[in-house]
């Protein structure tokens, strides 16, 4: 069982390593969106520090959406998705493996870039530290819920736009608790409550999302 999960992970990571351009686009998008805000709202440090956490979190959700429409689409196109669904292992594990690979490829680099952008938004070190923890808990949620959307919109024309409309509302709790945690630590009320709720939301998505995505995938392949 874990051998299958590892095989899916290793396969997706190898493919990502062969096509670096694909995943660098999402990271550049993250940097660009976050960098446009200081240019638009002006360079006052207090203002930037106030909007910073929200802007970085919104940019992270949009960057993850950008790559999600391809989560199953490439494998569907060349037929390997059918082979994977027809493997003797449960489809849930396949979806879990692919979501995990998506997080490693797109989520982890966001975690590495976010502190630099945090400095740009005049966030304190403490706020940057909490931002990192919130992204660490929050980006897997984006990958897991995104897997549901990607499976539902597989093979549809204009699936990318539909995916955005379907999934963005589901991202709202992660966005509120994630940005709220950083706001909380800056306002002096502490971040624990928000981070606990974010953690609970992660556990909930981990338990439910792969099952829904696997069922959606089977419907999309019919």
């Amino acid at each position: 069982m874990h051998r299958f999960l590892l095989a899916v992970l290793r396969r997706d990571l190898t493919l990502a390593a062969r096509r670096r351009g694909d995943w660098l686009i999402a990271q550049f998008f993250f940097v660009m969106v976050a960098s446009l805000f200081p240019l638009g709202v002006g360079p006052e440090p207090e203002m930037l520090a106030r909007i910073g956490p929200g802007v970085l979190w919104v940019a992270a959700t949009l960057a993850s959406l950008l790559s999600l429409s391809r989560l199953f689409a490439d494998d569907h196109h060349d037929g390997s998705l059918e082979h994977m669904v027809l493997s003797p292992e449960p489809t849930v594990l396949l979806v879990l493996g692919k979501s995990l690979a998506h997080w490693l490829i797109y989520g982890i680099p966001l975690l590495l870039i976010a502190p630099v952008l945090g400095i740009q938004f005049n966030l304190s070190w403490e706020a940057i530290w909490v931002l990192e923890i919130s992204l660490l808990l929050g980006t897997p949620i984006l990958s897991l819920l995104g897997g549901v959307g990607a499976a539902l919109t597989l093979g549809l024309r204009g699936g990318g736009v539909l995916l955005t409309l379907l999934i963005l509302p589901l991202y709202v709790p992660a966005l509120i608790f994630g940005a709220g945690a950083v706001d909380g630590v800056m306002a002096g009320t502490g971040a624990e409550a928000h981070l606990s709720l974010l953690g609970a939301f992660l556990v909930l998505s981990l338990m439910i999302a792969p099952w829904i995505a696997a069922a959606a995938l089977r419907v999309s392949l019919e």
Partner: protein
Amino acid sequence: MSDPSLSVHDLACARGDRLLFKGMNFTLNAGALLLVQGGNGQGKTSLLRLLTGLSSPEEGEVRWRGQPIRKQREAYHAEMIYLGHANGVKDDLNPVENLRFADGLQGRVFDAARGVATLEQLGLSRCLDLPCRVLSFGQRRRVALAALLLAGATLWILDEPLTGLDVHAVALMEGLIRDHLKGGGMVVATTHQALNLEGVTVQRLLVGNVAIPELA
């Protein structure tokens, strides 16, 4: 465990509002080939997808070893392999890597020497370290066939397996199908090409109502 057998009971298939076929019955036993024939758009591919379990029938059921495949999905998929129109070959990986990942996804440990030998048997010895992106359509099809051979499944479900293959590869494929059937395997295939299959039990199934001239 009972002898391998694939049977179909009162199967009906609809695509949207259109009924493709209904009341289909057949049984396929070990060592036999089922040649599914019919014109374009008559439901050959839909039938094969029903047999794999990728889609579910409007009515009736597909049974493997006497049990409905819905109730034993994982056991059935361990003994069955499907090759559809798309090859399932990743363009960014070379043929050996493709076979390695195909094996990993089937939960098997990859035997590199056997993988390379199979690719060489299929005439790909000069392409082993090239990404599949640069291979021709027929060569990619051969990679998919190598994965089929390595899977060691009892039941092969092949949708137009000969598309894009040259005469040598077609002859090779005929030999492989014969060997597989002699070893007690089973094959369900659709094809528009004539196949030379002497000494093999061939069952024919006509899907739809378009008459097809007898294939040799």
